[in-house]
């Protein structure tokens, strides 16, 4: 049976991500939900530094570019000034979990009524593929050329699990874009994270496992297979904290 699909206007401008990069999929899911809610002209997207900067050229809506790591703090300020608008921080793992770990966790801790999306592609992609706190054991990056050694650099960080322990936080989930099935699940997480803010329920965080074929040095086929077999088993997919009924 045919399922009608139309490109949302907020992603109607061609994006500047690399071929096969999963960012574009999350961009579209967010756009779909915003348009479903009728918030195209009532959303301010705060962009972190990293590949999310590419959205300056393609995200067809209001967007503020802040510094590396300060997305949650900036989105907090936006929400304080305009509580009537949807305030979203869109960041990568290096941005939100490494340099911006303090801002990310403190915004969650205070239960700021913002929605944070974090692309986790297991590396610092914009700067050319350096090791991130999310890099998998053994994964080769330009700063872990023999593969990440957890004995020296720690095991990959799981921030959503920690954020979910704060008592008041409204919604925390981790999705992935490595298959159509997971993308459809992720759409539900995106929707919950946005609805939680619109309903005044509090802070919401959705981490998204995302392929980075360019910096992983893999085809899309290999990338999604690696995500399914290696990454997703470590980074448990699903809702880590469901919305209160």
């Amino acid at each position, binding site marked *: 049976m045919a399922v009608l699909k139309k490109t949302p206007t907020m992603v109607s401008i061609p994006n500047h991500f690399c071929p096969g990069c999963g960012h574009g999929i999350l961009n579209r899911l967010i756009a779909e939900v915003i348009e479903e809610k009728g918030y195209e002209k009532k959303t301010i997207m705060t962009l972190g530094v990293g590949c999310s900067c590419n959205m300056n050229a393609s995200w067809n809506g209001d967007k503020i570019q*802040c510094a590396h790591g*300060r997305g949650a703090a*900036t989105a907090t300020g936006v929400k304080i000034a305009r509580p009537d608008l949807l305030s979203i921080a869109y960041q990568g793992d290096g941005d939100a979990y490494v340099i911006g770990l303090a801002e990310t966790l403190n915004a969650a801790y205070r239960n700021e009524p913002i929605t944070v999306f974090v692309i986790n592609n297991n590396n610092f992609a914009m700067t050319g593929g350096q090791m991130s706190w999310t890099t998998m054991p053994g994964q080769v990056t330009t700063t872990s050329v023999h593969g990440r050694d957890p004995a020296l650099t720690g095991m990959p960080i799981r921030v959503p699990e920690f954020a979910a322990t704060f008592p008041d936080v409204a919604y925390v989930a981790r999705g992935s874009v490595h298959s159509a099935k997971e993308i459809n699940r992720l759409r539900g997480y995106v929707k919950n994270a946005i609805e939680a803010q619109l309903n005044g329920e509090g802070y919401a965080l959705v981490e998204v496992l995302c392929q980075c074929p360019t910096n992983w040095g893999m085809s899309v086929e290999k990338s999604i297979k690696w995500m399914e077999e290696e990454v997703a088993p470590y980074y448990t997919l699903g809702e880590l904290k469901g919305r209160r009924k």
Partner: protein
Amino acid sequence: MRKMWKGNHAIAEAAMRAGCQFYAGYPITPQTEVSEYLSYRMPELGRRFLQAENEMAAVYMIFGAYACGMRSMTSSSGPGFSLKQEGIAYLCANNYPAVLVNVQRWGPGLGTLDSSQTDYLRDTRGGGNGDYRVIVYAPNSIQETVDLMYNAFDVAEKYRNPVEILSEAALGQMMEPVEFPPFKERTEDLGWTFDGTDRPHGRIDNPQKPDALRAKVAAITANEQRWENYRVEDADYVFVAFGLPSRTCRNAVDQLREQGVKVGLIRPITVWPFPYKAFEEIPDTVKGVISVESTDAGQLIEDVALAVKKMCPGNVPVYGLFSGQKIPKTKEIVAFFGGVRSGETKEVF
């Protein structure tokens, strides 16, 4: 009616009178009373106070809120203000207004809690990466602190540029009689701010370019220089001092004038833009200019020397009295002047 107010409480109340709707900050001595006061005062007025996790987060909260047009401010001191520099550079890069308060303490790194002016060069030169300037007011009394704060948001919004109040530890901690202006509020839309509709954000769509910065600096330099000259018109020697040292300096001028020595005082109120215009009044017969400042090795003196080069004919010597981590006493200034006059003390520039 004038009432006794502590400097840090007065600057916070003045911000409320000026229409500040949001404050974010992190505790650091000697400015913490700004946060403490606002933590209860702002909710009383239906406004937002937020104790941030660190200085950087505080400045980005202001960044986000002022991008949406909300009058917002943050405050800090010494090393805390250093941490804010990243965000201040981003404010300037995007042409966002903001109001910043630096209640200076002494020294690099942790430093001490002593009253000083050792942040002068950092704050008048931008302080972060790239080329930009912050408009910096340097009051010398609590009443003047209040009056400058009252206009700070208007000036910041006019030029789409951060405005800083450069206070000093003693000025923040001491008490003086103050009269507050009435509450005011900006109700009109600034036109460029973020409102979700993706309307044009003016200069933000075309990030800061060299020409744009030159034009902004030229306009601010032309319009915003503020100073107070005291007995300069016939002076043989002119002191230059801002903030608290300007008060002891003024006493020194009076004492020396009583002795028949013709001295005067230039007191910059804006330290950026530096008030070059104040130096027009210096007579061509001037024998020397003396920078008096609470720094260790001289900071204000660099601007004084440049101003003297530009405004005074001949090679007028520029001397420096650097009092380190305290305000120079009147008698120290008078004694220093004796050395200048006798030729014992050598010029710096």
